[in-house]
């Protein structure tokens, strides 16, 4: 099924502006995508998976992207169908200050870990997630590194997170003032 037909089908199924902004993937963006209202993502996902014509049984990738200039965090879902061999990309635009949307881990269990990673690195909250803990970083880590304005703390439990530049460490120290040299001359040195 073509991407446009998939979009039309989703738009027809849900009343209101749940699915909008179709991009056919022929411009700079190489894959066709459309926007989904974040609070309806779980319903849309269920529809995509259970509808016999769509049959999206494989959630490839959940990605979070931070856009500070738009004050947005976008969560991108790449979905694919093994049976029908078509694909579509869904995007949810979230408020950067309070990014939250329902989980799709009840639809595709593989979302469980991918959403945890997204929460860990970008701070997106997935409502209804069975186990929303940090995944890759330690539990007491502060901040979300993949946000664009993230500044790494100087140390973590006394362990410095930066180290001196080794090139600077081994650089030959050039005396900054001429004074010591002048003294050496006075004493009859070279």
């Amino acid at each position: 099924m073509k991407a446009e037909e998939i979009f039309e089908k989703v738009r027809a199924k849900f009343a209101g502006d749940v699915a909008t902004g179709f991009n056919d993937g022929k411009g700079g963006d190489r894959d066709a995508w459309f926007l989904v209202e974040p609070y309806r993502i779980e319903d849309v996902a269920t529809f995509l998976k259970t509808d016999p014509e769509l049959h999206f049984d494989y959630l490839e990738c959940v990605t979070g992207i931070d856009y500070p200039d738009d004050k947005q965090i976008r969560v991108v879902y790449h979905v694919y169908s093994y049976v029908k061999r078509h694909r579509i990309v869904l995007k949810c635009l979230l408020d950067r200050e309070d990014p939250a949307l329902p989980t799709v881990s009840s639809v595709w269990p593989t979302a469980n870990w991918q959403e945890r990673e997204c929460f860990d690195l970008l701070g997106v909250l997935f409502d209804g997630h069975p186990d929303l803990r940090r995944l890759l970083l330690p539990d007491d880590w502060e901040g979300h590194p993949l946000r664009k304005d993230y500044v790494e703390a100087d140390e973590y439990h006394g362990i410095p997170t930066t180290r001196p530049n080794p090139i600077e460490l081994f650089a030959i120290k050039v005396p900054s003032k001429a004074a010591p040299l002048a003294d050496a001359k006075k004493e009859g040195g070279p």
Partner: protein
Amino acid sequence: MSEVVFANEMDEEMTLNMGPHHPSTHGVLRFIVKSDGEIIRTAIPDVGYLHRSIEKIGERCTYQGYMPYTDRVDYVAAMFANECWASACEKLMAIEVPKRAQYLRVISCELNRISSHMIALGAMAMDVGAITPFPWALREREHINDLIEELCGARLTFNYHRIGGVSFDLPKGWRDKTLRFLDLFDPAMEEFDRLITNNTIYIKRLANVAIINATEAKDWGLVGPNLRASGVAWDLRRDDAYSVYPELDFDVVVGKGLVGTVGDSWDRFWLRCRECCESSKIIRQAVDKIDEHPEDDIMGKLPKKIKPVGEAYARIESARGDMGCYVVGRGAAEPYRARFRTGSFTAMGIIEAKSPGLFLADLVALIASLDVVAPEIDR
């Protein structure tokens, strides 16, 4: 290394810490195992020990400068991460790759697939108690490392592919060496099968252990050999073909449950063995066909300034299955976002769901049969 905690004196449940430096966890991985004697109630994976924030590094490198970092996504099969990143960028910037370069990519990747599967097979056999297959497998891998070293100068983190092509053409005499190796490799695989795959003890140990059926495998996003072992005939190289794979003739091996049930641990082992033979078939054809294309035509035409606007998601069939790379550009020399979707990551997700009821020793077999590589989980 392990410490036993009883939560309740009356209940036999104990909490056992496995890893992170456990030899059978394939890198630095930790499991918190709650078990009743030998039988696991739940095993909760704790990952992140090797997290290096490769995606954040990607936002600070130029498009070409990120290539050596992608090696570190999966160091056992670095060629695939190279190819994945290159193809994502090529898709984003609509760069055409010369045919010869595509053949070189196929050859290098398939060699790498064999060497990666050799580690997987040897390590899995060792994890469940058979020591001999490991050095046998490493012997084959050593030959491949030599070949790849001659091709690109590195033995582990190759940095061989480039956006638009590859960095070096075939060295003189390399083709004959490769064919000679493959002539020795095919009988070596038969020998390997006699040694371990069809070994009665080994079959008894692994048949019907940790069965993953097709629906579960799809739902949990298992990919590549793990998915095919569950009976789903799906291979990106054939079904969503990229590069020059349509010109090559090979079979997609699917788990059949020859000694037990479809999708058991033995199936995953057997499938990787067969896949090595298919890869060998592919390489033989590719080194033959590569000469139809002019020598040294290995780099496509790149735009003068690499500052793309837009986004692309490319995927390839890596040794651990469907590896995807999502790249977003916003007109800067660095990508705005670089995301890797890896097979090991999703394979780890299923362990917590599959572990209840397994024997503690079978958990080791499950982890090994899924062929997870810790840096690929943590990135």
